[in-house]
């Protein structure tokens, strides 16, 4: 008897889980809050400030989605996740979307049953060396000692790169970025390797950042993007097109400064009109109000503005746009058209 009750309860729970997974948008609207998974803290990408308000490049995606869906960029419950808990948090339904500088890979997309909705930052593994070493290319690092985080894809990429170029290295295994920073500064290794954005952030924290250089070689592809669960394509569409709206807004010249003005009356650019909802019914097609994209853009501006404010060249992290420039400016950011 007891067992049947227990199994029954489990079944009900499973059915409830299936039902709720199918309509994330309704859940979010009923809750009045978006549950967004972020990292527990990564410079420039997500971290709470002195007042406990989350800020950063990944956080901006969550806020844009909340603004598009709920009309309120602050209606976000940020759920901090570690590298180990992020996927279970998403799979179990604890969070509606994950924006946690997560690399889009084949197995994560298919085997783990997630849907990457796009790329908000094209990263890649790089090398940092002290200027005093006199190295200008990673291919000159023959025989170098390399600080490397164990158990990550960076470790495998490193081995591939050195084997391909037929040079040797000696790994110095480290556990965390903080440890790597200390080891590198203490001279335990000649070079430190991790994602280029991480290197830039690490270098920015040094006492004398100018004494260190990041080598031009990028040895891996790390497309970082927000993701949602399999099984609710409507919700995936909303997150995907919110991200695309930010990217398109930059391409079309819609900024946080002029978005209100452009949305108040139809402009002479049809695509801007469709994006901002003054023409056509794109909002209706994804189940949102007509001005959804306007609200998303009004939060923190377009993609370029978000980039500049959080990780751009005028911040301590000082990342150049590089690959993350618009396709019209030599980068590979390319949003499908709003039509």
């Amino acid at each position, binding site marked *: 008897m007891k067992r049947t009750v227990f199994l029954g309860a489990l079944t009900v729970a499973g059915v409830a889980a299936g039902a709720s997974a199918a309509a994330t948008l309704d859940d979010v609207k009923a809750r009045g809050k978006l549950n967004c998974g972020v990292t527990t803290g990564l410079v420039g990408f*997500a971290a709470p400030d002195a007042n406990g308000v989350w800020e950063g490049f990944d956080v901006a995606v969550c806020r844009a989605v909340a603004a598009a869906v709920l009309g309120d960029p602050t209606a976000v419950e940020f759920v901090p996740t570690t590298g180990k808990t992020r996927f279970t948090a998403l799979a179990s339904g604890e969070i509606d979307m994950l924006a946690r500088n997560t690399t889009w890979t084949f197995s994560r997309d298919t085997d783990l049953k997630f849907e990457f909705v796009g790329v908000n930052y094209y990263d890649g593994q790089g090398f940092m060396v002290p200027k005093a070493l006199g190295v200008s290319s990673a291919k000159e690092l023959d025989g170098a000692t390399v600080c490397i985080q164990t158990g990550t894809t960076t470790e495998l990429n490193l081995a591939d790169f050195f084997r391909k170029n037929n040079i040797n290295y000696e790994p110095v295994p480290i556990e965390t970025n903080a440890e790597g920073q200390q080891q590198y500064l203490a001279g335990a290794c000649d070079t430190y390797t991790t994602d280029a954005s991480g290197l830039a952030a690490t270098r920015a924290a*040094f006492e004398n950042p100018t004494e260190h250089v990041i080598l031009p070689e990028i040895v891996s592809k790390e497309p970082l993007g927000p993701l949602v669960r399999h099984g609710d394509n409507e919700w995936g569409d909303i997150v995907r097109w919110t991200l695309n709206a930010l990217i398109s807004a930059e391409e079309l010249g819609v900024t946080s400064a002029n978005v209100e003005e452009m949305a108040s009356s139809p402009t002479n650019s049809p695509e801007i009109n469709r994006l901002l909802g003054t023409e056509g019914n794109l909002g209706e097609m994804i189940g949102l109000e007509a001005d959804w994209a306007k609200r998303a853009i009004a939060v923190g501006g377009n993609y370029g503005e978000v980039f500049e404010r959080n990780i751009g060249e005028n911040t*301590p992290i000082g990342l150049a746009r590089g690959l993350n420039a618009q396709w019209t400016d030599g980068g590979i950011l390319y949003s499908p058209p709003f039509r």
Partner: protein
Amino acid sequence: MSDNQISFVRTHMLPEAPPPVAATGVVKWLRENLFSSPANSLLTIVSLYVVIDIVISAAPWFLNGVWDSPSLSACRDILDGNVGGCFAVLSERWNQLLFGFKYPSELYWRPGLAFILLFVAGAPLLFFKLFPSKMLIFTGLYPFIAYWLIWGGSLLVPVFALLGVLLGAFVYKRTVSASAGMAVIAGFVAALIFWILSGFITAPMANVLAIEPVPSRDMGGFMINLMLGVVCVSLSVPFGIMLALGRQSSMPIIKWICVVFIEFIRGVPLITLLFVANVVLAYFLPPGTAFDLILRVIIMITMFASAYIAEVIRGGLAALPRGQYEAADSLGLDYAQAMQLIILPQALKISIPGIVNVAVGLFKDTTLVSVISMFDIVGMIRGPILASAEWNGVYWELFGFAALLFFVTCYGISQYSQWLERQLQTDHR
């Protein structure tokens, strides 16, 4: 005989001379303790050199420390190349280190008050000879007061929880004469039914006598470490006693349940249990079931600590001579009386150092919750503070502060336990 005269006879006492300089005061102490042999003298000089060297090199770091600056780079500008700590991170983020980054700052007085009351509540338990036993009433009320202060919400919730406990105790009292085991179960069931029923009353009256509620997710900092440490230690001691007695029981089912539980929990790392609490349980519960994360973690850590404390207490029980058990039996005491009056007071006294050892270790283990993305003090440092653009790169100051807090607490616990051992000493040494 007469020619054999004594040439000198002292007729009065000499005045006392002061002892030689080398055999008194500082010089004597130095000679005995530091320079008793050439080898010791050499060791003394070398250690003195090392100590002075450390002090000289560390002192400027403390003395030049910057306490007021908006960011690490500004700190470095102020220091202008000199050696010095950037303690400004502590003066700017102390509230986040202590309470987490989301606890509303205007409510800091509430956990603060709960912390102070903890000492009032703990005093009659810890210093039972110095305080009137009537204060134990407050100790019994304290968990409900502290819950209400820290989490807020309606006063009815802790009041009904308390009433449930009282009802359970009442049912236990009424039925204990029939069978002690059945009485425990009956009391528990009565309390459970009362709690479930009271849920229907408290839910619609959430705003009655309410103070601003704070959800568990908003808690963090050293507060979490203290909460987990205090709650789990105080829960795991009674559970540990029950498990230890259960393991020695002659009833096979109880014995085997206890043995399996203890051996299983001791064979699994705490971090695994925490992952289960955080991650695996989420799969079994329907989405939206808000089974509080702190509650889950408390359950797991309590299970872990009880298993260890049970083994410590089993050691205490085993150390008692068999005659003590037989003496209790010969006096005609039943099991409960024998345990309560003869066995446990002695066994627990023997177990104190072991229990304190587990308690101190457990308290430090609470920092492991940072791996399941709870922002305890270490989680706060590793996550939000080191990830902020202003403070990325400050390590020594932050981790030193955390170490200081833990040292003060753990040293206090250890000193108390030594005092307690001296208080309970009844043998003649």
